């Protein structure tokens, strides 16, 4: 079958499965589900699968996308059912469909986050966080191959809201998914560098939705 797309979530204990391990895990799950992935031709055949945006270890998601091809026909409603019986805890297929789009058209993504403050009131942080992230430019050092460079993350944050909830602050943000990619963890490291008093003791994130450049939901 021609190009198909899988939408799946990766939560709970599965958030620690790395990108490379996820590729292996998916291939094995397809095999266990009796779904035959199409392999490339050549000396070292590999399954034709590709993921939209690699997810960093420790981040959860309910909108992961993976494209794949099958060598045999299979009904689209059957695929999630078969796969969900074959996947490890924490990975769950939500939908399989024929895509009309290409991954390169993904531009923005919705991120939910929780900032935990140990022994400090989270309520006090909300307005400070709002002010900090509404700045026109937030320049932080970023490690890359040639050493450390500076990067302005402000243009990569389309919107961000904070809301206190007891011992932690909830955040909802729309950030740039690619070109450039904003890893949500940089929101925490920006605080650590520039406003340590606002930096949480721990931040956890979940991807919730993907959009194209016109903010249409990406499918």
């Amino acid at each position: 079958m021609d190009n198909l797309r899988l939408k799946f979530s990766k939560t709970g204990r599965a958030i620690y499965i790395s990108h490379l391990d996820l590729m292996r895990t998916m291939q094995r799950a397809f095999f266990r589900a009796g779904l035959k992935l199409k392999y490339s031709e050549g000396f070292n055949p590999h399954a034709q699968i590709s993921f939209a945006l690699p997810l960093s270890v420790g981040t959860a998601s309910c909108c992961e996308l993976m494209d794949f091809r099958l060598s045999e026909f299979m009904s689209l409603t059957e695929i999630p059912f078969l796969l969900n019986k074959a996947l490890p805890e924490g990975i769950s297929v939500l939908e399989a469909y024929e895509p009309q789009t290409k991954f390169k058209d993904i531009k923005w993504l919705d991120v939910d986050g929780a900032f935990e403050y140990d022994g400090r009131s989270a309520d006090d942080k909300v307005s400070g966080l709002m002010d900090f992230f509404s700045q026109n430019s937030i320049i932080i050092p970023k490690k890359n191959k040639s050493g450390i460079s500076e990067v302005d993350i402000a243009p990569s944050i389309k919107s961000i809201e904070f809301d206190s909830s007891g011992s932690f602050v909830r955040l909802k943000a729309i950030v740039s998914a690619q070109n450039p990619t904003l890893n949500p963890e940089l929101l925490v490291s920006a605080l650590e560098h520039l406003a340590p008093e606002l930096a949480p003791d721990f931040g956890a994130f979940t991807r919730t939705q993907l959009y194209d450049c016109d903010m249409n939901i990406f499918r």
Partner: protein
Amino acid sequence: MPKLTALKKRMCDMDKKLLRILPKVQKPARYTGGEYNQIIKDKASVDIRMALCFPDTYEIGMSNLGIRILYGIINEMDGVWCERVFAPWGDMENEMRSNNIPLWALESGDPLAEFDAIGFSIGYEMAYTNVLNMLDLAGIPIRSKDRPELTPLVFAGGTSCCNPEPMADFFDLCVIGEGEDADRELLLLLREAKKTGMSKKEFLSEAAKIEGIYVPSLYEPVYNEDGTLKELRTLENAPEYVTRRIVTDFDGSYFPVKPVVPSTEIVHDRVTLELFRGCIRGCRFCQAGFVYRPVRSRNVNRLINQGIDSLENTGYQEITLSSLSTSDYRSLNGLCDGLLDFCIPKSIGLSLPSLRADNFSMELMDKVHQVRKSGLTFAPEAGTQRLRDAINKNVREEDILSTCRIAFEGGWNNIKLYFMLGLPTETAEDVLAIGGLAMKVLSAWKSYSSNKSKGINITVSTSCFVPKPHTPFQWEAQVDMDEYRRRVALLRGNMRAKAITYNWHDADTSFVEAVLSRGDRRIGTVIEEVWKNGGKLDSWSEYFSFERWMTAFKKCGLDPKFYACRERPFDEVLPWSRIDIGVKPEFFRHEREMCYKGLLSPDCRKKCENCGAVLLMKGGRCDG
């Protein structure tokens, strides 16, 4: 119920702490559980909880077939939940210690102290410090005498328990031999003991009646003035000898066709089929070749079905065959054909380790390696025919060279040769002959290679011979480290061809291993001392410290050379003398004499030499 609330709260706290730690450590998926095929049971419906511990990392432990078998078979018991525990890597250990997180089991996340039984599977001596470290990380006292309660019961099994004495002070009991039946009987007895309120002491004397169970506290070592053992005195009604336990119906015995599939890469990330236990060869240095006797095989059709079921249940794209000498499986061709019929259309790879050079079939290799031509590996073990005969390694130089010729004609260009240095009776001539053999392989390539443009890689590796208990060489002295290094240097100086790469194993680990393998109960204090000074993960070069071991020996007033480099007379009481391994001591003695005469013994299929192991079959036959 205030107690339950407190427990729940603590669990939440731990989870919260873990959530923060996991993103900081290397390969966190090793610590989370949740893999496909893991077994989750309702805590309310079980009355025995067992932690199956492997004293090394997740990647090593999850590759271990013994762990897969025991995990499956124990979980088949009603009312028993068996979970997995591995040693954390150093970064994780630091985080656990600084955040007060006790070692937990992967399935439930519950700390080990809550379990009824904590069983370690120990395959190699260098893991001993990990056992102590894991108990300590769990907050459990490391010494048996400091654990007065019945539970958690701390015990061990695995090949290292062939000599249980070095770890005798730490374990409540040891399972000698195969755990399939003994572990289940032990857990049933533990259930009974919990119900009837038995004391630990009462339980242990009952457990000692189970065949294959060695209770160290029922044997008291008495020493001579020269430091050798005078006797291992039996206390109370301890059995004179503990006979190694085996599975008599191996063909019909449990095999895990639904193993846990790790979500992160492990060392042997594939389906492993077990063809047979035991070995017909009787190489005199090889502990495995004696302590798994008698030979018991699995039916070829059963194996094919187990292979297919395992592949379908795991989704693995690779399957391998496991045994001590794959070539000696009688229906190897039929097995490969049956598996390949399933594997080839699905692009599943089949690999064949442990092939012998003498009856090596190129056709078989060609069939199996349809996609890639990986390297060929031979283990001649010694350089001259004289020494190969002395160690009963039934491989002839012409066999190796003719196999190489076929391989080179078939386009192979990567050969690995494994040898040991320091074997009994070894001379300089034997050492130099290793280089000579490598040169002959090289010239075979020059004469017969079908594709010389790609060049050739010959890798020669040597390790330092470690005499092991329950082998014909159990009385031998290990060559001291300076002598070993001298032999390495001698060989290095005589292997100069560009196509030959020479790797040698470092002497330090082999020396410590030699002490631990044949140590007595006093060695336990050294292991504890090493661990107290930070020793752990000793099979990893980044953690092993020779200095730390030597300092500990000194502090404990023990000379490591007394254990490693001293030839022991036949009449000396050996620390493992209470263990009846199945093979008779007289057989080992005879085989050692044959070594010094330079004589071969026939393999078990040519002629049964009456080693004694068949008696373990209780009337069943040996498939040697």
